[in-house]
């Protein structure tokens, strides 16, 4: 039996009815229509589906959609303001912190959550911050360089 799910995605309120078995990632992609969030595994291992739920990075394939009732969700589509990219998005571009791009939404959400929580992380903390996300292309170091650049304030005016 479907149940009501009221939540906000990227600031936009939604009031929809979902089957209890639906995972947050499925609702975001199939019902809300935001396909930026990806799915790469079936075992909560790859992090491609990472979104922010009430400010925390979570794997949206491992959260029942109904558990997001009343919550605020931010997806990769919510990072840029109009045509203005977020500092991390800009840094990812400049540092080549993506290749095929399939893990990138998850990487961006993990790093965004990390910096929201701790604006001055150490390198080790940055690595921990994206350790739940697999990237098969870049080797991670360019992602760490991108996050470092943001932490150093190189993208300040972009805010």
């Amino acid at each position, binding site marked *: *039996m479907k*149940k009501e799910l009221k939540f906000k995605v990227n600031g936009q309120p939604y009031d929809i009815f979902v*089957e*209890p*078995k639906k*995972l947050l990632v499925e609702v975001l992609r199939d019902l809300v229509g935001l396909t930026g969030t990806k799915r790469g595994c*079936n*075992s*909560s291992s790859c*992090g491609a589906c*990472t979104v922010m*739920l009430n400010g*925390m*990075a*979570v*794997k949206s*394939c*491992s*959260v*029942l959609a*109904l*558990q997001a*009732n009343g919550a605020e969700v931010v997806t990769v589509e919510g990072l840029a303001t109009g045509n203005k990219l977020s500092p991390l998005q800009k840094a990812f571009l400049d540092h080549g912190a993506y290749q095929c791009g399939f893990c990138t939404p998850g990487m961006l959400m*993990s790093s965004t*959550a*990390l910096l929201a929580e701790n604006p001055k992380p150490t390198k080790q903390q940055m690595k*921990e*911050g994206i*350790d*739940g*996300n697999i990237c098969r292309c870049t080797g991670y170091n360019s992602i760490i360089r991108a996050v470092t650049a943001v932490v150093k304030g190189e993208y300040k005016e972009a805010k």
Partner: protein
Amino acid sequence: MIKDFEHFAPKTLKEALALLAKYGDDCKVICGGQSLLILMRQGLVAPKYMVDIKGISELNYIKDEKDGLKIGATTTHRAIEKSPVIKKKYPVLVEMETRLASIQTRNWGTIGGNICHGDPAGDPVPVLIALNATLTVAGAKGKRSMPVENFSLDYFEVDLKDGELLTEIQIPVPPPRTSTVYTKFNIIESDLATVSVAASVTLGSGDGVCQNVRIALGAAAPMAIRAKKAEKVLKGKKITEALLSEAGEVAATETEPISDIAASEEYRRELVKVLVPRMTKEALARAKKA
């Protein structure tokens, strides 16, 4: 593929227990769901009813009380990791949490869910055993408590009867000059443990004698276990390298490891032999400073 189910989101423990009593074997409890949802996606678990206790706020707390630390079962790993009081008084819990899976998992997954999943390679249980923790479960008939090492019964099986819920973890105030440490051995940093060791050492006053020691092993048997014989080797003695190494050898005989894709049975025993002395020594060194 997840089979559909009926979803209940009780707001209180009482409501949850009533639901569990009503639906019995046909229902499963979900909290963070970080382990359960994987099994459900794989079609291995397909409950008709799901009691979602994530929203029960009365079980979500960290309390620092006179007789020790109380953690509610629906407290997330991340809340423990970031708790200032835990960091100050029970730093081993923070060390353990930072190595548990990924931040995403810790943000949503809960300590209670982890313990109830009964994975012998889980991180919290060995540490809680070393800390001499107690668990409280609640059911229709009331509450009961037990030492954490008695809770796990077998592979992925714990001492929860139908209709019962884990509600609280209690950690006693450690005696003075006590230190507890934890390590897990794996190949990929954030992976499950191939073998894990938690050790807690209490030093006697001044003489450097090991007054008490608790050693717990993860992924070395069907459930996290206490290496009691190894503890005996060390207890009441002044610790020497030879004794430590003997404790490692003895601990290895207490294990019942399996061979799987991560490691062979023999290798797991070897790791216990190495890591038990190593962690005990570490705990000892820290206890001396404490």
